[in-house]
Every structure is written in C-alpha cells, then in structure tokens.
C-alpha cells in the first residue's frame, strides 16, 4: 500500500515539475529573446494588478489557448488529425519517468529512489519513446490533407529519422565508457573522480560525443536552426492546419523537448545530480578539507544541482535558437549524414582504441 503511494507521489512530483518548468520555459524564451533584441518582452499579464516581470504570462497564454475555437478543417482526416498532437505530447512527456532527480532518500527507514521508472534499459527506452514522436509529425502532416503540410510532415520525419541515427551512434561511446544502459548506474559512475580531483563526468570522457549529442538532440527538438519541419516563414510546416489547444500542444511539446534534452544532457554528460566532491555524508575536497552534512541536506544539494544544470542547458538552447539562422534543407541533410554520423563513428573507434590502451 505504502509502496504504491510512494510511486504515485513520485509520478505526481515529476509531472508537476516537468509541466511547470515547461510552462515557464515559454516565458523564459520570450524574456531572453527580448533581452537579446533589446526589447522588454512579455510583462503585461497581471493577477489583481500584481505583475512580477510578467510571471503570470504562461497561465494567461494557457487560458487563452484553451478557450480558442477547436477548429478542424473539413477536408482533414478527422480522427488522425485529432490524434497526432496527443501522440507527440504523450511520448515526449513520458520520457521524464526515467530521469533520476537525486540519490536515494531515506525517510523513517524507507529508501526512496528519486526516479520514477528504474529499468535497466532506460537509455534505450528514452530513444524508443522519442522515436515514437515521429508519428505525431508525420500523421499531422498527412491527416491535414494539404500539400504543404504533407511536405512539412515528410521533411520533419526525414529530419528526425536521420538525426536519430547520429543520436544513437553518439551514445555508443558513452555506453562504452560507463558500462550501463541504466540512468541511475550511469550517474553513479559519474560520481567517481578522475586523477583524484576531476569529477568523472561524461563531458570530460566523451567531449566529441557530447557535441554530436547536443546537435542531434537540437535537431530532434525541431527549433531554429533545425526548424525546417515547422518552417514558420515558408508556410510548409506540418501543423499549419491546427489551431487552439491542439496547436498549443505542439508548441508545448517543443518546449517539453527542450527540457527533456536538458535533462538528458545533464544526466549523461554532466553528472546528473552529482555535485563535485559531495559524497553521501558530505563534502570531501581533494585538497584535504571536509564538510560533513546530514543526509537530508545532501539530497537537497543534489536535487538543487540537478535543477541548476538543467536550467543552464535550457538557457543555452534558447540562446542558440535566437542566435543562428535556419539551415537550408540540403545543408541540414549534409550536416546530419556527412558530418555528424562519420564523426560519431570516429568517436566510437577512438574511444575503443583509448580504452584498449588504458
């Protein structure tokens, strides 16, 4: 009974964290782009006259979208047209279950792992769920029954499936270094030290793998510079026939992808919840100092560290999105097939050679 309750609480916490942060990412994106373009950005939404730099904006947006007319073009394939946004939304959202937020929390003799779904193929599970999101793109393009959306959908699916190859290959080097497909085991490995002082994070062991993974995941999230399937200025996007909440779900899915990519980057390459030199009983610095801490504080530190790293990567992605112009379609394909995939193969071979020498 109590076990089921714990699982339920974990699911609710993870979902609330995920959705709330995603909601605020929309606000963060508007504010950051405004900052970069010397504007003020969204600041008008208020709650009884209180407007804290527009912090209520996401809720106002959500309410606006929920009350818009749910418009479906008469020529569309109705059922698939309705189904497609839910596919994208669900399969992106479900990946959060495998991310570890912190180490084991002990409350009153109970050991609670701060991770919803602890399976030994977690990494592949995330890849599988992300590969399902292709259907959301492909079906919405096709079900709208419009040439432009069809082109957008096919483009989007081609892009996603091409970059998924690079994505999978870039992770093989990482799996070779940390011999596990389980997220919590990978994070545990990253708690160790290299040369006695450097945290053994994925970025230090797999720098090339990190870069390839970053670009491949950014292409998966379909934002500028990889936003060809969306193609705002060309009107060939796959969701041009959507409006109201269904369009809102696509937009929300985009931001969910940003967040989940940040979580994956943190977990795989930046030590997840690991704080450098923090052990189960407190800090132990390489230069010989010690700072012992109670268990609760240690877990709190870990969760905070996880959040800080995730926010850093969200910020980085928004920065990149507003800095670079869009690729042309052939450039996009060349970048994926002729640069990222050969590089990731080189990365695998190099990792194997170095590991066999050491």
């Amino acid at each position, binding site marked *: 009974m109590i076990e089921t309750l714990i699982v339920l609480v974990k699911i609710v916490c993870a979902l609330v964290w995920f959705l709330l942060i995603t909601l605020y990412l929309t606000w963060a994106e508007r504010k950051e782009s405004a900052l970069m373009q010397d504007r003020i950005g969204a600041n008008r939404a208020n709650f009884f006259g209180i407007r804290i730099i527009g912090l209520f904006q996401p809720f106002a947006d959500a309410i606006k979208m929920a009350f818009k007319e749910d418009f479906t073009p008469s020529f569309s394939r109705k059922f698939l047209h309705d189904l497609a946004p839910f596919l994208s939304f669900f399969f992106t959202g479900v990946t959060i279950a495998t991310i570890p937020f912190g180490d084991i929390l002990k409350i009153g003799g109970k050991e609670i792992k701060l991770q919803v779904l602890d399976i030994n193929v977690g990494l592949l599970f995330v890849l599988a769920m992300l590969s399902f999101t292709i259907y959301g793109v*492909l079906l919405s393009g096709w079900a709208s029954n419009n040439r432009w959306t069809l082109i957008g959908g096919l483009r989007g699916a081609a892009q996603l499936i091409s970059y998924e190859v690079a994505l999978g290959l870039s992770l093989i080097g990482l799996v070779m270094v940390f011999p596990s497909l389980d997220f919590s085991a990978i994070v545990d490995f990253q708690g160790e030290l290299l040369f006695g002082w450097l945290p053994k994070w994925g970025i230090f062991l797999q720098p090339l793998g990190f870069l390839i993974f970053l670009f491949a995941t950014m292409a998966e999230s379909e934002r500028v510079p990889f936003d060809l399937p969306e193609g705002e200025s060309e009107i060939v996007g796959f969701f041009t026939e959507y409006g109201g909440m269904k369009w809102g779900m696509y937009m929300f899915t985009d931001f969910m992808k940003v967040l989940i990519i940040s979580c994956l980057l943190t977990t795989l390459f930046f030590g997840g919840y690991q704080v450098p030199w923090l052990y189960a009983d407190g800090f132990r610095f390489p230069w010989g100092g010690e700072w012992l801490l109670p268990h609760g504080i240690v877990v709190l530190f870990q969760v905070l560290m996880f959040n800080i790293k995730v926010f850093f990567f969200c910020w980085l992605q928004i920065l990149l999105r507003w800095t670079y112009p869009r690729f042309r379609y052939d450039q996009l394909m060349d970048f994926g097939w002729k640069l990222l995939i050969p590089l990731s193969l080189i990365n695998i071979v190099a990792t194997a050679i170095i590991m066999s020498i050491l």
Partner: protein
Amino acid sequence: MAYFLFFLLSVVCIASVLGMIISKNQAYSALFVILAFTCTGGFFALLDAPFIAVIQIIIYAGAIMVLFIFVIMMVDVRKGITPEKKKWTSGFASGIAVILFIELIVALKMAFNPLNTSSSQAIGNPSDLGYLLFTKYLYPFEITSILIITALVGAIILVKKKEKE
C-alpha cells in the same frame, strides 16, 4: 498483475491485427500494425527480454513502420482499395489458415517437451547479450552488417531517378 497485462496486450494485439485486415485504408492498416508491434514489444518485456523489447520498439515501430508510412503517403491511394472482385480468395485463405493453425498446434503438442515455465533466473541482461553477440555469433553479426550496407546502397540505387543524358 502479469496475467492482466498479458491478456490486455494480447487482446489489443489480436484486435489490431484484425483491424489491419478489415480497414480499407492503407495508412490505417499501417497504424494498426504499429500498435500490434508495440504490443509484441510488451510481450518481450514480459518474457524477461527488455533489451529485445526496446529494440523491437525502436527498430520496428520507430523506423521500419515510418518507412512504410512514408511510402504510403508518397503513393497516396486516395480512394483506398476498391472492393476485390474475387471473393473466394478470402474464404480460401481462412480455410487454409485454420487448417494450418490446427496442424501447428498438433505438431507442437507432439514435437516438444513441455515448456519450462518455472525457470525464474533473470536472463536478457544487455551486457550478456552483447557478449554472446561478439563471441559466439560474431560471424553472423558481421554478415548482417554487410547485408545492411548492401540493402542501403541497393535501395538508394533502385529508387534514384536516372539523370537525363
């Protein structure tokens, strides 16, 4: 719990295959098959093969079926398939299928030792699988990789339009 999952998955799986047979539109057929493949992945997970289950979902449901849907959209038969003239084939097919089913069950009854359900040791650990793949099954593995490359090149050459001289 496991029983419930098994029956739920098998009902969904069989229903989706039936739906694939019944539906007139190829795209819907393909979607039903995706559902069936995902259910098969669930069965693999129930049978202590999590790695194969995830591979099934990534490759079958995530890549192969995307190719199918791609081709269906390119071909785009808007009318769907016209009702077939020769009705006797489906009856014939069902007859043959039922006979085959009975025959297979009888063959299974006679040919095999009883299945060993009780073995509870966990198999299907990805690292064990990888070890076996690179030792005992190394040559098949290499040959498959050559096959994949050949298929890749072959598919490109087949579909590529000839340049006009």
